[in-house]
């Protein structure tokens, strides 16, 4: 018994073990506190309260419509028994364990025992898993969905080049619905020119009807479309043009409708008239048009618009980062003098200035550049200037702190020595302070340039200009190839910069 520390023997428990246990049964942790283990008691009490709180929150999320604690709990138990029962059981076990722990702590010569904390940690982990909605099953089963976009992002270069295209079109008018007047006559055929005829030339569009809460599509009139005079053995797309001028490639069972022409350049296909919403305000007879199109590439390969835009925006991004760094350096140098304790410790006034500057720098630095970009966008509008402002503001705060810390850490010896030669204050700064400042100054500035260019690639996400803006556009348009080009450009730029900045820093420091 006497093997434990003497400290424990000097401070025996205030109460007997059973009393401590019962105290902790009513208020978890109280028993430990009475056994002179106040910190342990507080920790266990805080943990249990937090866990019960988190559990109650999760239960109420499962039963938002129910009123009253009991009703909520029953509903939650009904919906997710696999979650509610084990957690509740563990919390009860923990409660009892805490009581037992108090009993043990109150025994003379007893101490420590960390198993109770292991249970606390396990409970936090399980609840955390639930709250952050971790779902490994989903990750495993739906990973393949990312294959398409991902492969396009990883190798986007097919979209980097393009050719001019030439489109051969011919179409035939279709009236919908049929009326008493004669339907549109088929177009006149000119030998050698592409020609399309549809039969019949009037009919009904597909309809969507709600039947018992389910939308059902009633197919439109079946049209036989015949084409002649096209390029032989070439893919031909079938397009539909409605009376208000919208054109779209027709689909059948989810696939775009296309057909190969035969050796004579002719084809025949049957289509249902599609579903179209025509505004009720449109007047007169509704004449649609079915079109056959052949698209052929002509001319040499050339750089695509996506590539050109990406290059343009990448340059903008790098320049944006450089401008922000330049302004950041210019403004942060004077600020850093105000934030250097050794320079400002002269009088209470300068000390006050020092604390104000330090506090401001800390506040500004703790706000992310993305948020500054949103604020700047409010003032100067979306575009690269907003990004420059955002990154400049953040750079001033970050560099101001770094510079001021390097001023604080310079060796006072040379200052003393130069003063002793009869030099003026300015000469002393130039000969004793500046040479010592150069290595950290260069190092931090380049480091910041590195960060700023990297930041400027994402500052466009919130409208701060640069390639990030283009990237979000492409992703929203599901144009993963063009987005992939942007991602590649960003990766190449950041890697190059990383290397260059490391090289420069190595030379200077």
């Amino acid at each position: 018994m006497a093997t434990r520390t003497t400290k424990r023997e000097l401070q025996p428990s205030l109460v007997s073990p059973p009393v401590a246990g019962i105290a902790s049964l009513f208020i978890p942790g109280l028993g430990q506190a009475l056994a002179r283990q106040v910190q342990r008691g507080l920790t266990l009490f805080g943990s249990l309260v937090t866990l019960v709180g988190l559990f109650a929150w999760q239960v109420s999320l499962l039963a938002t419509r129910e009123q009253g604690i009991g009703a909520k709990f029953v509903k939650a138990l009904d919906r997710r028994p696999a979650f509610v029962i084990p957690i509740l059981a563990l919390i009860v076990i923990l409660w009892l364990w805490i009581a037992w722990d108090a009993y043990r702590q109150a025994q003379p010569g007893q101490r420590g025992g960390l198993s109770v904390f292991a249970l606390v940690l396990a409970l936090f982990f399980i609840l955390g898993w639930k709250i952050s909605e971790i779902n490994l099953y989903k990750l495993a089963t739906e990973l393949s969905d990312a294959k398409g976009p991902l492969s396009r992002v990883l190798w986007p270069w097919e979209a980097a080049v393009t050719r001019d295209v030439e489109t051969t079109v011919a179409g035939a008018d279709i009236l919908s619905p049929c009326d008493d007047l004669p339907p549109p006559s088929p177009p006149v055929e000119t030998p050698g020119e592409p020609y399309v005829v549809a039969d019949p030339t009037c009919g009904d569009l597909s309809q969507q009807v709600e039947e018992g809460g389910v939308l059902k599509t009633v197919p439109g009139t079946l049209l036989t479309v015949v084409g002649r005079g096209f390029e032989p053995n070439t893919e031909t797309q079938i397009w539909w043009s409605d009376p208000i001028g919208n054109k779209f490639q027709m689909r059948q069972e989810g696939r775009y409708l296309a057909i190969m022409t035969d050796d004579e350049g002719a084809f025949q296909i049957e289509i249902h008239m599609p579903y179209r919403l025509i505004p009720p305000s449109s007047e007169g007879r509704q004449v649609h048009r079915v079109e056959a199109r052949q698209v052929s590439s002509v001319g040499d390969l050339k750089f695509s618009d996506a590539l050109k835009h990406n290059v343009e925006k990448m340059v903008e991004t790098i320049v944006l980062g450089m401008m922000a760094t330049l302004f950041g350096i210019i403004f942060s140098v004077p600020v850093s003098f105000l934030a250097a304790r050794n320079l400002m410790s002269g009088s209470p006034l300068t000390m006050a200035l020092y604390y104000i500057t330090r506090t401001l720098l800390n506040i500004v630095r703790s706000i992310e550049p993305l948020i500054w970009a949103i604020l700047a966008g409010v003032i100067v509008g979306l575009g690269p200037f907003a990004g420059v402002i955002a990154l400049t503001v953040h750079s001033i705060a970050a560099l101001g702190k770094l510079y001021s810390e390097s001023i604080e850490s310079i060796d006072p010896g040379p200052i003393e020595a130069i003063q002793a030669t009869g030099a003026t204050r300015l000469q002393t700064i130039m000969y004793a302070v500046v040479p010592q400042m150069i290595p950290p100054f260069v190092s931090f500035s380049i480091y910041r340039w590195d960060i700023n260019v990297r930041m400027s690639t994402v500052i466009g996400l919130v409208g701060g200009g640069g390639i990030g803006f283009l990237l979000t556009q492409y992703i929203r348009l599901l144009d993963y190839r063009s987005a992939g080009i942007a991602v590649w450009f960003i990766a190449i730029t950041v890697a190059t910069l990383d290397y260059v900045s490391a090289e420069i820093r190595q030379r200077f420091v």
Partner: protein
Amino acid sequence: MFQIKNLTKIYDDGTVALRDVSFEVADGEFLVIIGLSGSGKSTLLRCINRLIDPTGGQIIWDGVDISAAEPAQLRQIRRQIGMIFQHFNLVKRSNVLTNVLSGRLGYVNPWSSLLHRFPAEDREMAMAALKRVGIADQAHKRVDELSGGQQQRVGIARALMQQPRMILADEPVASLDPVLAHSILEHLERLNQEEKITVLCSLHYLDLVQRYATRVIGLRDGQIVYRGSREEIRAMTDREFKDIYGEEAVRVSVVPQGREE
């Protein structure tokens, strides 16, 4: 003639570094100040060129009261007092020549010096000073490439550029090994003897004190506890030594084959 009268220095935190210190130094003397670390040696030397402002007392040099000098006048005085430091206090990233030339800052045009422009004669003078301390071939190296002994010689060359009438040396050999210590002090001794530059030097090792000093003062707790001439210091007994340095002090020799006590 250089006089210190009732010099007192009390730091802001209440530490009394110097208490009513008075002594005189004749021109051309090699005065050594001895005493434990913290006895006030560094403070005393820094009060002389006002790197530290004394709290009370006077420092009079050829009738001029340094302790009352205005900033412009103080710079005029400072440039005539060379200073050498224990840790050399060189700008390590600058080259040797720039460090030596910085000793000239009190003389040159303050504005053109900001652009590191120095007159040609100053550059020649710098090379001559480096030659004198034996490291002319190192002039274009960065200071941090030099050994400790070479760095202290750069420090001496910098002080020489001031064409000083007095040199303050604050434990100039404390961070050097014994052989180098002699070589550095010999340089100072030569300046003292050949050009009659007054030297005020603080030292730790009694051997060196006995070898170089023409006069000695001992400081303890900011007060002068010992004054001795060249002869007296050579005859110094262990008893006197322990009076200055305390009972636990043991004489250590800086010469490798030195005597054992």
